[in-house]
């Protein structure tokens, strides 16, 4: 029962990610795409340090390592 709830919850969240991305790609949409959202975050810098880029790259790197290496 709880397992089904967890699977249902994750599938719903993934479906919502896809729906929001689809809505963002429609012409004249006021929703940014996930790529635009990431690009905006990656603009953040503290002095000469590209903190946003480091954070986004670091998170994505960790995600791949988490799924493929451990």
């Amino acid at each position, binding site marked *: 029962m*709880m*397992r089904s*709830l*967890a*699977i249902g*919850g*994750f599938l*719903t*969240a*993934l479906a*919502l*990610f896809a729906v*929001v991305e689809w*809505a*963002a790609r429609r012409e004249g*949409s*006021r*929703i*940014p795409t*996930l*790529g*635009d*959202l*990431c*690009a*905006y975050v*990656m*603009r953040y810098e503290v002095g000469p340090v*590209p903190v946003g*880029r*480091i954070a*986004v*790259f*670091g998170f*994505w*790197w960790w*995600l*791949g*390592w*988490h*799924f*493929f*290496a*451990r």
Partner: protein
Amino acid sequence: MEQHREIAAEVPRSWDRPVVSVPVLICLSLVGGQLPSFSTQANLYTLGTGGALIWLGLGNRLARRPAPERLPRGMVWWVLPAVLFGIFEGGTFVLGSSDDFPTFSRLADPLLEDPLVRSAAYFAWLAAFWGLVRR
């Protein structure tokens, strides 16, 4: 007087095209998909490919797509799936990630044991990484 406007356009490098990058990513994914979890090779390969992409992304060797100056108010819609995912991931993690209430990675692990699925997932990870490097 006639004015000549100089147009500066960045010419993409010969290797910086989908016809080159996609086959390279496919080859890297096929290799990565053969490496089992918890192996030294898998650790080194993930750290190596990711590290190389970060090196490219932090340098100025590649042309980048322009980032938006501001985000429209519709960005709040992204909170909905993120919070839902976070609730389930956090809840299952706090409760110990058992078979009865598994985290997302615990659910994904059996699927990723198949080399073909693993290679496809590897390709998705690398392709998204490449997309981030270009932003």
